């Protein structure tokens, strides 16, 4: 059986070898299609992965805040909720904001394998130097834990996160804020909040500017420091969780939220708009590049179709000798497939070359020279090959059917 297939393949190869020029044209069509498919999809997928990576890294994978998706029922409603009694104007219980029982949430999150949870407290303060005021949001963190869940450390132009621990009253602010305030590392600024008297803070580090995820109005301080500055001792209002697998964020967030009641927002939820935009982008990209590959397979159709018309006599010979319709169909489909395979191999080379060129380009962005993000994974090569093989055999299928249907008697009679 394999022997026969191999034998039929040699017939197909002989046919192609006879038409070198046409074969070369069809092969280069496929090669160009595959090459550009690879280059375009490497760009698209590469930039998409880069976006998503930044999205994922921008903030913890899950952020648990002291908000509730729906307000918790007041005690009166809780007791008589289903009763036929309408309750109005009862005394509303005031609750202290902040995540209650946060240690339990942190340990629950930590129990997910590879996960790290970092508690923090955020709030608003005003920084003042001389006559200049700047309102900023501060984040109080435990540097050793926060370092594990965020990429803050990489975003620092000057200083380190753990400098917060070694310097009394240390604060890390954005470099452009520092510029506006006219301070440098080591300088003192005054910080005040609505619930505490002012205190002096020493600038120990600066963020690079232009970090989308860190607005220039954010400052990092020690958790303890934030709690006293904001007048909320022992309070936590935010827990950031980093997971070993970012894509598990939605499930883990849902679990934590249903267990503890606090809003647990995964990075996917946070960026739902953006992610749906990416889906649209992917649909567009794959339709365009599939069209390229499809058009490339027209060349295959032409070659196989011409071979079938040219070889009607040979087809009649083979049929009368005893080759079956299936044999003929197979021979000509193989011709298409062989063209696709050779085309894909050259296309891979071309694509590899294009990607190497794209990868060597450098663009200055925000002061840093950046490479174009490219996805050079084997997956793209496999997709390109698969689509081309499918398109190629499909393009060959129609003329091959025509070949199989040739009635040898028509040819024999015609030759008489």
């Amino acid at each position, binding site marked *: 059986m394999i*022997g*026969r297939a191999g*034998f039929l393949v040699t*017939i197909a190869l*002989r*046919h192609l*070898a*006879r038409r070198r020029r046409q074969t070369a044209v069809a092969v280069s069509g496929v090669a160009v299609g595959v090459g550009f498919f690879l280059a375009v999809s490497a760009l698209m997928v590469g930039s998409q992965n880069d976006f998503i990576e930044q999205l994922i890294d921008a903030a913890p994978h899950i952020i648990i805040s002291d908000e509730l998706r729906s307000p918790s029922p007041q005690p009166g409603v809780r007791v008589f909720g289903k009763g036929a009694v309408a309750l109005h104007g009862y005394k509303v219980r005031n609750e202290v904001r902040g995540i209650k029982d946060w240690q339990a949430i942190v340990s629950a999150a930590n129990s997910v394998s590879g996960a790290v949870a970092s508690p923090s407290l955020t709030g608003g303060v005003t920084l003042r130097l001389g006559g200049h005021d700047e309102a900023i949001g501060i984040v109080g963190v435990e540097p050793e834990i926060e370092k594990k869940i965020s990429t803050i450390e990489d975003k620092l132009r000057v200083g380190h996160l753990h400098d917060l621990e070694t310097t009394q009253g240390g604060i890390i602010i954005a470099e452009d804020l520092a510029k506006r305030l006219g301070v440098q590392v080591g300088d003192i600024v005054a910080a005040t909040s609505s619930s505490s008297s002012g205190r002096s803070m020493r600038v120990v580090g600066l963020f690079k500017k232009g970090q989308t995820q860190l607005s220039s109005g954010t400052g990092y301080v020690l958790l303890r420091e934030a709690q006293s500055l904001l007048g909320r001792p022992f309070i936590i209002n935010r827990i950031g969780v980093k997971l070993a697998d970012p894509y598990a964020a939605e499930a883990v967030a849902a679990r934590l939220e249903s267990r503890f009641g606090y809003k647990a927002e995964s990075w996917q939820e946070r960026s739902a708009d953006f992610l749906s935009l990416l889906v649209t982008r992917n649909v567009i990209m794959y339709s365009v590049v599939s069209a390229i590959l499809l058009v490339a397979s027209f060349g295959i159709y032409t070659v196989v179709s011409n071979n079938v018309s040219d070889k009607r*006599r*040979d087809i*009649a*010979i*083979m*049929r*009368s*000798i*005893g*080759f*079956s*319709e*299936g*044999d003929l169909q197979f021979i000509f489909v193989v011709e298409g497939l062989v063209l696709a395979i050779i085309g894909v191999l050259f296309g891979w080379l071309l694509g590899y070359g294009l990607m190497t060129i794209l990868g060597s380009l450098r663009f200055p962005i925000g002061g840093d020279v950046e490479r174009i993000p490219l996805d050079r994974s084997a997956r793209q090569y496999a997709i390109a090959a698969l689509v081309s093989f499918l398109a190629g055999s499909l393009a060959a299928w129609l003329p091959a059917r025509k070949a199989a249907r040739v009635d*040898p*008697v028509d040819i*024999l*009679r015609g*030759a*008489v």
Partner: protein
Amino acid sequence: MSAILEARSLTRTLAGPKPVHLVRDVSLTIERGAFTTIVGPSGCGKSSLLYLLGLIDRPDSGELLFDGREVSALSGDERASIRLARFGFVFQFHFLLPEFSALENVMLPMQRLGRLDRDGARSRALELLTAVGLGEKSANTPDRLSGGERQRVAIARALANDPVLILGDEPTGDLDSRNSARVIEDLRALAHEGGRAVACVTHDPGIAEISDVQIEMLDGRIEKIIDRRARLPAA
């Protein structure tokens, strides 16, 4: 003598505004051990009958029995495998595959049948080509062979799978008289000594005269069947 092929009232008409009656009500038997010729004026339907007998074309009506089995209603694939394993064809015009050498052309039916491996097919093909005097030119492609040489390659190819029935449509049409005589002698020997059935269309009265059975056609019908074996003294 056993009948290998038996036709009963075979009819073949090309449909159309003016139907062409290629073969009308033909009944005959082709026997093993006999060298049969089909003769008649040009256009009388000899080739058309041969295509029916060779399972290449299907009759519109009538029966065709191969080895006692009705074959006109078999599927295309079943008929193809009978052609491959049991029949050998030599057409009026040599039909070789141009991309393949003489040797490869002869190997073709063997490789398709798969009874012999590649080496086996190769050595048998070389034997067959040597038998028709082309051992030296086995590597030539058809465009580097003369018309007569191509016809001999076609004969070698017809014998590739050791067929029980050999059908020829003027197999010697392109050959000079010496080569023609040799081919006819070989075909007769295949019938007489090998126990095969050989049926050839021919215009050559000399060939028809030495055949065991001579079928004369006119206008799609059988005019006359001359069986020369009957006149031979029973040996």
